[in-house]
């Protein structure tokens, strides 16, 4: 058990609560940074993709986990990010480093356009509305053929930053580092939001709108800001996703993707940045595990899983159901319990976390 004595408010406010904590995360970053020296291109690509899912997960986490608003249409914001960055690069010839934030802001703009008229919608109603918007976005992509390539889709050009080239097939290691850099940047931004007044107003709006109002939180505005930030981050994820898959069309960002994003953060653990990463790891690792077990194990038994097209989604849903039943706090919640168990050993009590309830609660009975 580690007890930190505090003599000032700084440890409360700092990014890391103590130096051990700080060391752990710096080590993690260092480890991630040297991965290209150990992994082959295939696995490095898969990990780059996990980072992209983590960014998208963080985007959705801001909205669902922190401000308590559900979106079933976040694939649309990834789409806006992906199409924008590439159209800006090709049609306007903007450099990637300028096109990327603009893509984020365009996605953010769409989020604001949705958030303002829906300020009074909660829970299932908001979910349905965002779903409708995402279907609309798919249609618009098809209709805006001159820009988006319509049903045929669009090709991503290479990324050039100060005449350094980034391309998934040519040099995945550089692309991986680029994505890792932006992931780290976004984590720091997210952490800063959580430790500042803005993050607290998110939690206030999530947990009790009426007392948030009574305490001076402009609830409608905070909800809109949450949408804006969420969609910005998701748009950035979309931009990287576009460059990662290199060719895509409107179907890439369909409703199934939106649902998967939501499942991902619920499984990972709502309400924490860790949750977004744990969820992304599951999403990234599950297909690899399935294909490995298919190759090594099931084929030998004469079972051909190719006959089950929806297997991944099915397994994913099964995991989700198990989590909601047995661990509503997601993988992060489970991890906290295991850690507490070891920290307090042998003093851990079985009921220590009993009082905690889950909160995919976005609607309150007034």
């Amino acid at each position, binding site marked *: 058990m580690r007890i930190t004595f505090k003599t000032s*408010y*700084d440890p*409360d*406010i700092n990014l890391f609560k103590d130096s051990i904590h700080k060391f752990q995360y710096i080590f993690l970053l260092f480890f991630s940074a040297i991965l290209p020296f150990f992994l082959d291109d295939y696995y490095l690509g898969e990990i780059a993709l996990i980072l992209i899912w983590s960014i998208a997960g963080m985007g959705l986490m801001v909205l669902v986990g922190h401000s308590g608003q559900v979106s079933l249409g976040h694939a649309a914001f990834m789409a806006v990010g992906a199409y924008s960055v590439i159209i800006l690069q090709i049609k306007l010839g903007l450099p990637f480093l300028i096109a990327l934030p603009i893509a984020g802001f365009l996605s953010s703009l769409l989020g604001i356009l949705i958030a303002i008229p829906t300020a009074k919608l909660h829970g299932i109603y908001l979910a349905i509305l965002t779903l409708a918007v995402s279907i609309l976005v798919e249609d618009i992509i098809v209709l805006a053929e001159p820009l988006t390539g319509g049903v045929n889709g669009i090709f991503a050009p290479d990324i050039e930053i100060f005449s350094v080239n980034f391309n998934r097939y040519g040099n995945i290691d550089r692309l991986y580092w680029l994505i890792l850099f932006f992931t780290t940047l976004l984590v720091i*931004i997210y952490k*800063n*939001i959580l*430790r*500042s*007044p*803005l993050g*607290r*107003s998110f*939690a*206030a709006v*999530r*947990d*009790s709108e*009426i*007392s*948030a*109002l*009574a*305490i*001076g*939180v*402009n*609830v409608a505005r905070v909800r809109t*800001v949450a949408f804006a930030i969420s969609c910005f981050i998701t748009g950035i994820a979309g931009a990287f996703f576009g460059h990662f898959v290199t060719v895509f069309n409107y179907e890439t960002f369909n409703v199934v993707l939106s649902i998967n994003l939501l499942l991902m953060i619920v499984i990972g653990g709502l*309400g924490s940045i860790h949750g977004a990463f744990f969820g992304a790891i599951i999403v990234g690792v599950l297909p690899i595990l399935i294909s490995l077990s298919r190759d090594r194990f099931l084929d030998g038994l004469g079972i051909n899983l190719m006959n089950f097209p929806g297997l991944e989604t099915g397994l994913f849903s099964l995991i989700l159901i198990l989590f909601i039943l047995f661990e509503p706090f997601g993988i992060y919640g489970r991890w906290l319990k295991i850690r507490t168990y070891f920290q307090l050993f042998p003093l851990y009590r079985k009921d220590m976390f009993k*009082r*905690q*309830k889950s*909160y995919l609660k976005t609607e309150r009975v007034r």
Partner: protein
Amino acid sequence: MSFLELKNVTMKFGGVTAVDKMSLNINKGEIFALVGPNGAGKSTVFNIISRLYEQNGGEIFFDGRSLNKLKAFHISRVGIARTFQNIELFGNATVLQNLLVGTNTRKTSNMFSEIVFTRSVRDAEVANRIDVEEIMDFLNLQPYRQKYIMGLSYGTRKIVELARALVLKPKLLLLDEPASGLSAEETVDLAFWIEDIKKIMGITILMVEHNLNLVNKVADRVAAIVDGKVVRVGSPKEVQSDPKVIEAYIGA
């Protein structure tokens, strides 16, 4: 003009008239209690003052200005803070975080400086903590500093809600049944705190309370409310011995 003035305030829910042409005057520096049977409209009055409800008629003045045009989130800025009958805390956050939300109204930073977490944001955070810490010391909440609300007892939550209201540094504090659900000892503490809030912090208090011991101990004046109307205003003794008030309680 009195500090808080309700003028012919009426609130209807469908066919139910919850508050019926009610007029009340609360003076600066006093502790004013509303008593009356359940469903009399006491909480509705609080919700109208907080602008959570828009009244159907009448007007409310606070510190010389009309509240009619204000939005709910403006109310804390004009100097009114409140607690709720059925505790409304931010359940998935710690006590510290709950109280810190109360400092948001005083913030001068914008979203972008918060995202970068500039030096001035950090300094403001330290100042906020000093403010919050003072209130936590006052209400003996230090042991719960980093505890999550959902793990706290009912009585502690009530005190946290009171603390959160005080963090706003209000001029007027609305307490909706602050003693309900508290143990006898907790109620004794509460009585001292309420008196200190008035005397030391100089805050005017309007409270709804069923516990007549508490009302007798702390209240300067009391209004008995029945069916959305004021039946009697006076000292705690006067009101409790008024035959109309006794009848309303027995009848209810």
